[in-house]
């Protein structure tokens, strides 16, 4: 027996969390990619490694770091607590966790896409009087958007399935912070195999749709 809200709730929450996480990560990711695409050497190399780190660290480690930062006694958390904001065990906490986890995917693909932009186009814009920011907005991004969007979709798919860091920060509160991945684990643990199966199929289907879409975007070439 499945209760519909037990399916709907995790699904909508996951979509919400993944969308917001992708959006926030995109804003930071594009900025970092822009900054890094034009710099080489010591400090940028370390920054690059830091930006990629969430891709290889176990999500639990990320969750632990996040608790150190935004937890009640954390660096930022104690200040947030004093103004009445508590991110632990909230869906906003899940957004933060997912943002960190998907960041490398967005950063890497944006950077690769920006580095592939023909440098002469950007130089042409410069000689025509465009500022660095205008070059970026009006030339670099339009020529790189395909690769960027593909990265965004990959990140969205990854965000949908985020488990480890979300569990550590937001916990597993049904109807409040229980995302798809957590609901599956919960249903399986509780012996509710039907519910687990339905959730697994929904998650897989969603991810396949997103990945096929992103692959299509990468494959299609822009006319030169």
């Amino acid at each position: 027996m499945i209760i519909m809200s037990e399916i709907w709730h995790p699904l909508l929450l996951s979509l919400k969390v993944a969308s917001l996480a992708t959006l926030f990560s995109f804003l930071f990711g594009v900025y970092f990619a822009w900054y890094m695409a034009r710099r080489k050497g010591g400090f940028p190399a370390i920054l690059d490694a830091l930006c990629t780190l969430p891709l290889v660290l176990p999500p639990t480690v990320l969750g632990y770091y996040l608790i150190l930062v935004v937890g009640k006694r954390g660096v930022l958390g104690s200040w947030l607590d004093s103004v009445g904001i508590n991110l632990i065990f909230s869906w906003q906490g899940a957004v933060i966790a997912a943002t960190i986890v998907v960041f490398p995917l967005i950063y890497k693909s944006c950077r690769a896409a920006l580095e592939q932009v023909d440098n002469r186009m950007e130089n042409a814009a410069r000689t025509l009087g465009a500022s660095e920011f205008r070059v970026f907005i009006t030339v670099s991004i339009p020529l790189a958007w395909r690769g960027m969007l593909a990265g965004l979709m990959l990140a969205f798919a990854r965000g949908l399935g985020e488990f480890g860091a979300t569990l550590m920060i937001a916990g597993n509160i049904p109807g409040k912070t229980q995302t798809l991945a957590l609901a599956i684990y919960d249903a399986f643990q509780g012996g509710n195999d039907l519910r687990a199966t339905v959730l697994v199929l929904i998650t897989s289907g969603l991810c396949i749709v997103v990945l096929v879409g992103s692959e299509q975007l990468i494959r299609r070439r822009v006319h030169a």
Partner: protein
Amino acid sequence: MLKVHLKKEFTQNERVFNLDVNFEIQKEDGMCVLFGSSGAGKSLTFQGIAGLYTPDEGFIQVEDTVLFDSANKIFVPARKRRLGYMFQDYALFPHLTVAQNVAYGKNGYFVHYIRQELREKVMDVLELFSIADLAPLYPYQISGGQKQRVALARAFSIDPCLLCLDEPFSALDPLLRHKVRSEVQTMLSSQKIPSLIITHDPEDVQFFADTLLLFKDGQVKTIRNFRKYKETGTHITQLLLNLLQGTDSET
């Protein structure tokens, strides 16, 4: 009128290239052609004049404006140099129409939208280059010769104080090249904007050069008045070869 002294060490794939060019051109020198084999530093010289990199040391002055002076820490950024730079293979923006490409230099952040008074100016420029009918087309929809005109029109559009044309004809097929040369010649002489042309085609030299700047190994080897060859139609390929090998004794 134009004073250029550029020094920079480039390293690419562990190969070091030293650019060290030094030349001065006056109004009466007319059309200047930068000639030399590939990798002699011609394009790097243009990029230096345009401010697309920071030279190790040097000095650049166009008319009365100092664009770069390492001794006095002056570096005018590329966007403020007002140089009409036509790139090799044109570098037209593929996501913008011909009109939007030509409008880019005077447009804002919404490059797809051209406001009314700018539209009129753009149409004037397009008409000047007889490409007004191409205005709504994208670069991939037009021919090589048309792209060349659009690129030239775009370089003109910012009222440049100096035109730098980097191999303007190399992407055209030989017959078209012949035709376009005279068109460009007419255009340049009617606009009276000082121009530099990069080429490694002796025919371009023959056709355009009032003054020849010979590039070799990152340096300007010789600067010569070439008017007499242009006027008499003397065949210059051998002369250019001799100049490159340094066996020419004529002064």
